[in-house]
């Protein structure tokens, strides 16, 4: 087994590292200074579109259920019933897309504070509550503070394998991991619940101090409140509107949630687990400078290549590298910033882990299957950072 990196796996001297830090600071400062009316229009238009799509899809869904309800009176099938089924499917896909946009390009990014510069109390990291079972205040702690500070530092970042998966030979093996292909699939299907309970520490809940137990109980309560409201909406209230076709709407809503869960899972896993991303030992963060932090983010994240609409439905997390370098920069700017970051990587011979969706998800899944078994040093995974395919591709 190789050890996780105790120093940054780069062939650069301290001066070069600091120079890179200054360049990245400059990219950030220039981009933030250029924010203006166009950016404001982007997020407001997106929110309007997303809400229209969400409510429109639900109406289409109810109409579909209504058409199918008429079938009960004598007519076993017919064009009405088929159209009804079609509308239900259309509504489910539309709602799934609306939830994807809300969770990823809007909610995730708003809660990172990317839009706080507008000083609009409605589009603020302090007030946003997103359309998933995860309570936003829990998520902001676990994600913004823990994950984005300690990215890929073993023992500090709970997002490494989401605490339950072994995604690197650097994580010690345990027989439980034999089942990881199975529970990985469950995590994908039920991703929103996984995220909702991510902050929970079962050990502290069962055998922690009184104070630790109380904190864990409070976390569970917060999750139950939020998840309860979400489930009441999708599996009780909207289905009830369909009367006898209750189940139609409940199933359509479950499909929408499933679509969102699988998509979010895929994009997020592609950001941190494909071949070429690095894990670090705690020693790396001792006396870490800002420039060092930048480089660790660069080595810990992976991008996905794709078209404009693909980046949009990915919440621009397909620019995971840029997101990790500049988590509070409005996501609509990542595309233009990525060109500059890539150029910088080229000049200093740094890796820039990017690839097609199929490559990123393929290597991620291969790891999850491979590392279920002990050992697993893999020359492809543990290749020296500097020799990444990005250089050839650029």
């Amino acid at each position, binding site marked *: 087994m190789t050890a996780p990196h105790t120093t940054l796996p780069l062939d650069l001297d301290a001066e070069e590292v600091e120079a890179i830090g200054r360049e990245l600071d400059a990219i950030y400062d220039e981009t*933030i*200074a250029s*924010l*203006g*009316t*166009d*950016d*404001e229009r982007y997020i407001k238009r997106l929110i*309007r579109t997303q*809400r*229209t799509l969400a*409510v429109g899809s639900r109406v289409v869904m109810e109409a579909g259920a209504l058409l199918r309800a008429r079938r009960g009176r004598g007519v076993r099938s017919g064009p009405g019933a088929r159209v009804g089924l079609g509308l239900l499917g259309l509504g489910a896909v539309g709602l799934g897309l609306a939830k994807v946009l809300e969770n990823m390009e809007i909610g995730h990014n708003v809660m990172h*504070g990317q839009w*706080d*510069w*507008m*000083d*609009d109390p*409605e589009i603020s990291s302090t007030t946003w*509550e*997103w*359309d998933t079972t995860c309570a936003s205040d829990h998520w902001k702690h676990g994600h913004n503070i823990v994950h984005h500070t300690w990215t890929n530092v073993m023992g500090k970042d709970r997002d490494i394998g989401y605490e339950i998966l072994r995604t690197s030979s650097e994580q010690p093996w345990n027989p439980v991991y034999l089942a990881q292909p199975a529970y990985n699939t469950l995590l994908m299907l039920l991703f929103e619940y996984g995220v909702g309970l991510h902050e929970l520490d079962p050990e502290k809940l069962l055998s922690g101090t009184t104070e630790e137990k109380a904190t864990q109980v409070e976390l569970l309560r917060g999750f139950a409140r*939020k998840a309860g*409201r*979400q489930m*009441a*909406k999708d599996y009780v*209230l*909207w289905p009830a509107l369909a009367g006898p076709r209750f189940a139609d709407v409940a199933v359509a809503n479950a499909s929408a949630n499933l679509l969102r869960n699988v998509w979010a899972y895929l994009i997020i896993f592609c950001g941190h687990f494909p071949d070429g991303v690095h894990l670090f030992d705690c020693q790396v963060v001792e006396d870490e400078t800002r420039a060092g932090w930048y480089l660790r983010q660069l080595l810990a994240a992976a991008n996905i290549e794709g078209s404009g609409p693909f980046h949009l439905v990915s919440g621009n997390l397909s620019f995971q590298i840029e997101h990790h370098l500049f988590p*509070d920069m409005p996501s609509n700017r990542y595309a233009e910033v990525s060109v500059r970051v890539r150029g910088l990587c080229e000049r200093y011979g740094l890796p820039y882990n990017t690839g097609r969706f199929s490559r990123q998800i393929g290597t991620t899944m291969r790891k999850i299957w491979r590392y279920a078994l002990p050992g697993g040093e893999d020359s492809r995974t543990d290749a020296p950072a500097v020799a990444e395919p990005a250089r050839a591709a650029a």
Partner: protein
Amino acid sequence: MRIKERVGEVVDAFATPLRASHYVELVNPLWSSHRLQARVEDVWDETPDARTLTLRPGRGWRRHRAGQHIRVGVPIDGRRFTRTYSISSSPERRDGCITITVKVLEGGRMSGHLVRDLRPGTHLPIGLPQGDFLVPEAVPVRPLLVTAGSGITPVMSMLRTWALVGNMPDVAHLHYAPTRHDVIFGAELERLAAEHRRYDLHTVLTRSDGGSHFCREQLDALCPDWQEREVWVCGPQGLIEAVEDHHRDAPGARPVHVERFRASLAEIDADARGGTATFLSGGTEVEADADATTPLLRVAEDAGLNPAHGCRMGICHTCDVPLATGSVRDLRTGDLIDEPGRAVQICTAAAAGDCTIDLQETS
């Protein structure tokens, strides 16, 4: 009412984590109940540098009283700024609209935008009417109105109300403007004076006609019975001070009601020194050079921050944040504040040496 609330809760449950109002807003922003907005119906240039905006407030609006003001938020380059403006229309106006009249201030970021760039059809976030620059609901005692420049706006609401309800009291009105072209609502004021015998208007042009600023002789000449009149004064600091000083010394003078558009500031020594202001915001520190007279709110905004704020004149306390270290000066009193943890109204406080302000904590 309880049943209505219950129904509201159930309807909102369909929209969780949002509220039904967030979807209603898609159809018409004025129908939303979770935040108050107004649509700009019309813009009208009163003078070369003052413009009246006709606003239609949405659901949740509460009728104002003549003389009150509202907070208006306007996005400039994507960022929202907030300012306070007097309502110049009468609460008796029938079409459900209100008007505010904005004069461009020298170096004014927001007033310039409102006067030059705003187009009808825009929606602006607004606040509910506030303020106690009011005349009694009953027929007022014989009022003396003293106004200058855009200080006419709250008083215009009073005059329009009396004219609309057909109950014009015995009003004496002194209005100051540099030239005839600068008189906001000039034609309407003259029309009111012509139609209402009991409304006695004196427009003093300070830059022509050899006109002068407010003084005792002028008051004696234009309004000899001033001792019998309660005073409402609105305009620049100099005018307000002149009227207050005059009435403080005059025996038997009636009360003076004051509306300020800017905080009255204390004299600050010419050799007072500023320093480096450090703002703690969202886990980061922002440093800026701050002189001894620029409010820290403005310093923070110029440094790219946008702290919560409201009136910008030390009244509403929206901008209060604790002092972390160093010392600041209250520009209204000249007092030094150097006790860590003390609330600082950053709209009316400037640096007095180096200081650190904790923008994350509202106090």
